[in-house]
């Protein structure tokens, strides 16, 4: 049950909302794809939590250096004006609220902005948190990018998360294949819906009360 936007389209849409001059951390997976669609006329500085500001595109061929990787352990490149630092400094930067935006994937986002993205909590599942909790609470704005529904049709924007939480009340904007939502104290607003859908269509499919 996929919506009107492809994953590439979703990444492209989220990329539009990253302004000139922003310091941004893109999480592993779909969020990383956003870097391919950042408007070329904007200077945006990417942070990777393993110790770098000014990260460039994925390394290819001779550029590959095992000492220069991103948080997903993919070889990347360095842009002019980059800086390296150790892990405590890198997470101080995140925790201290210095990043403008971080973009994360999610299992679930609640209508109050709670985020669940690190652990299914299932029997026998091996937990691995990495930097997810630090990212969730650290950036000035937290964007989530995810398909709105699971493969079995469950809505991932939920009244209350059932998966173990990553952070409480931290998500501000959710980019999905059906719509872009913002979450604030007065509820969830549909900023933009795709494929001709209206707020009522989305209310019906999500089972949520939404603002237009």
């Amino acid at each position: 049950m996929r919506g009107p936007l492809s994953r590439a389209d979703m990444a492209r849409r989220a990329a539009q909302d990253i302004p000139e001059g922003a310091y941004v951390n893109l999480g592993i997976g779909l969020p990383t794809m956003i870097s391919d669609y950042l408007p070329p006329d904007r200077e945006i500085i990417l942070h990777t939590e393993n110790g770098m500001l000014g990260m460039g595109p994925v390394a290819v061929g001779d550029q590959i250096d095992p000492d220069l990787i991103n948080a997903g352990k993919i070889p990347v490149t360095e842009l002019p004006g980059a800086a390296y630092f150790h892990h405590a400094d890198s997470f101080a930067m995140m925790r201290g609220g210095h990043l403008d935006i971080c973009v994360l994937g999610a299992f679930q986002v609640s209508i109050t902005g709670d985020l669940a993205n690190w652990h299914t909590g299932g029997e026998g599942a091996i937990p691995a948190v990495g930097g997810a909790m630090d990212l969730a609470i650290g950036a000035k704005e937290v964007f989530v990018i995810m398909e709105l529904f699971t493969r079995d049709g469950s809505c991932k924007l939920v009244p209350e998360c059932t998966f173990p939480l990553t952070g409480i009340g931290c998500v501000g904007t959710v980019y999905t294949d059906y719509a872009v939502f913002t979450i604030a104290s007065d509820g969830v607003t549909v900023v933009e819906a795709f494929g001709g859908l209206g707020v009522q269509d989305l209310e019906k499919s999500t089972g949520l009360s939404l603002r237009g």
Partner: protein
Amino acid sequence: MISKIIGSVAEAIADVRDGSTVMIGGFGSAGQPVELIDALLEQGAKDLTVVNNNAGNGTTGLAALLQARRVRKIICSFPRQVDSQVFDGLYRAGELELELVPQGTLAERIRAGGAGIAGFFTPTGYGTMLADGKETRRIDGRDYVLESALSADFALIKAHRGDRLGNLVYRKTARNFGPLMVGAASVAIAQVASIVEVGELDPESVVTPGIYVQRVVEVSSHTPPSTQGQ
């Protein structure tokens, strides 16, 4: 294109308001952003809370700011010096509030302010009058004092070289509080001896990544003697 470069020290500090908390870098005169302090004196904001290691030397820089009665409170570790007469007089007259903090605790509180850490347990000061009234705790057989983060509206610091992204390097022991204060302030303003092109600073050697710096202003080293620190 990002450019954090500001044309003058006056512009750089124009929005400091009455009642602002201002961190000022430097240990003695090393790393003291003299020209930014002078611009702040000129600008006129008052009722300031100042965070600095010292409380002014001689009659220039921070001492001049104190003398002009712009500072309501100072948070520092070492106010009393041979040439701290301005501070001494105001403090004795009850015209300046002092929060005295051990130097390492001051540095760590500023770091905490920039690092999103609300408080920490330190052994420094336990059992002394500087821990009076503070929460203490015995952890693994040693006694600690709970200290809180410090943050600020503005940081005024001095670095050696900077670029338009705000990346900074320092010189020798003039580094001191600069890299900490820029993290703990909403608006961090660095005066640098020279602005360089992006890419000139070695990414392995950048001490302050640009993310922490909002404004960079080049200050020629040929300043008139009257505005130099001592």
